[in-house]
């Protein structure tokens, strides 16, 4: 039972990050590697602030803001300086490695002795003893649901429509007298904000910041998005954002299962890559995007 809780907890934490990647990869069609830096950025900001004694709940919006700032910079590098999308992300990711170290102060910051969003006096006094094992899970679920509903809501606003249009057909955005570059920057900001938020929750869950925490964020997120969206394609009326959540939990479950089966983590990267490749090949025919000015 508790292994399932562990998988759900971790899967749902990474789901927030996967939602960010859903925005860049699926909506904007922008392969954004910034996330490998913005995930630890959220964790670093959280660690630095918590060590200074800040209320752990406040680190959530601040991490989001820090991630958004990183996203905006990637966007500016891409849009204003006309650097190719992939390269802009790499530039930012590389820069963030140093920035994260500077923010956190060192490569490994333990947070064991501090109160966090899952474990604090107020929460412990409210939650009854019997529910304690589920306390963390429920907390993550609440944060995730808020994030998902806000994102769903945003995608239904005028601004959200424009964001979807920018990925779908940038020419149309121009025709609507809007700067598609700015819309892209907005999308990158929201996406990296979500990724950093996920990093913030992860650091509090793991009770430690480590500089290596961002390794492979992109791959995990992409796998979650692709698995989720392609599996849920066969289910009627399932929102993509929900599919991404499912994908993230499934991915975590696969990792846990593989480890249980005695598979080595080093082999897993290759297996993930192969799985990825297969799913992508299967789903390749479904969409031919308009690529004007490409």
């Amino acid at each position, binding site marked *: 039972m508790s292994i399932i809780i562990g998988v759900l907890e971790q899967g749902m934490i990474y789901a927030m990050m996967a939602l960010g990647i859903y925005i860049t990869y699926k909506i904007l069609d922008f392969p954004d590697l910034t996330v490998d830096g913005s995930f630890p950025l959220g964790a670093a900001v959280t660690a630095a602030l918590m060590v200074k004694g800040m209320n752990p709940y406040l680190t959530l919006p601040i991490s989001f803001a820090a991630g958004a700032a990183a996203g905006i910079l990637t966007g500016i590098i891409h849009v204003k300086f006309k650097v190719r999308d992939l390269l802009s992300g790499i530039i930012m990711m590389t820069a963030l490695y140093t920035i994260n170290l500077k923010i956190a102060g060192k490569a490994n910051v333990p947070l064991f002795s501090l109160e966090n969003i899952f474990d604090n006096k107020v929460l412990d006094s409210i939650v009854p003893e019997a529910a304690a094992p589920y306390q963390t899970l429920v907390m993550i679920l609440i944060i995730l649901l808020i994030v998902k509903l806000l994102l769903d809501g*945003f995608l*239904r*606003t*005028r601004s959200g*429509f424009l964001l979807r249009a920018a990925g779908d*057909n940038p020419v149309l955005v121009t025709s*609507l*007298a809007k700067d598609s570059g700015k819309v892209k920057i907005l999308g990158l900001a929201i996406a990296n904000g979500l990724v950093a938020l996920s990093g913030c929750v992860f650091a509090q869950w793991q009770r430690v910041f480590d500089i290596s925490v961002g390794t492979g964020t992109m791959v995990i997120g992409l796998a979650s998005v692709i698995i989720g969206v392609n599996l849920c394609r066969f289910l009627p009326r399932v929102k993509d954002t929900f599919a991404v959540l499912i994908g993230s939990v499934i991915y975590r479950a696969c990792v846990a299962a593989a480890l249980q089966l005695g598979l080595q983590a080093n082999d897993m990267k290759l297996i993930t890559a192969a799985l990825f490749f297969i799913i992508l090949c299967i789903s390749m025919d479904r969409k031919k995007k*308009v690529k004007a000015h490409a």
Partner: protein
Amino acid sequence: MLELRNINKYYNPGTINEMCLFDNFNFKVDTGDFVSVVGSNGSGKTSMLNIICGSIDVDSGSINIDGKDITREKEYQRHTYIGRVYQNPAMGTCPDMTILENMSLADNKGKKYNLRAGVNKKRIDFYRSNLRQLNLGLEDKLHIKVGSLSGGQRQAMALLMSTMTPIDFLILDEHTAALDPKTAEIIMELTDKIVSEKKLTTIMVTHNLRYAVEYGNRLVMMHQGKVILDRNGSQKDNMEVDEILERFNEISIECGN
């Protein structure tokens, strides 16, 4: 009034592949005109549209609208008062969004794209009545993704969308070229209807000489970055397709084809 003054545009300047597109090109369109532009491939028709819309920059010269210089305005800024329909029906709509969402997007042009609801439910009837005049049955498919519509249906929507909010200029870039003859006919009639209803100043590039003769009040033929034929009003009314075709043959011979 739209005016292109002394436009110079070279491709690959300073290289061996340097190609002159426009050399001191001048062109004027009066308010309320419906201009059909014809010409062979590479004559500069589409480039002219791109220059007007700001998709490509000019090397020198100016673009003026009602006396105001817009040469420095960005493409998206110019689209506040310009609507454009492309040859590729996919360019004017969002394939992954529904018909309703696409209509709402277009309806919000000129307003702020803020956090208000993307779809204004009060406007749905208006969208329906707009779609009904297309006679394509789209008004009953509001929640279908545009990507699953046919090219003709999409182009009809693109036309509706680009003219839904008040604009001064309509730019039609071979907008019937990718359609079958029957659909092209429908789209062309629809275009004429919208242009006359909304009194839009229109520039239409087309390869269909019949449309060029039949629609609009002015016909322009371009060749190698120059206007070589410009007929107005009654002059144009008396034109025949054969006459233009003859001109076409002349230029082809000049080129040695």
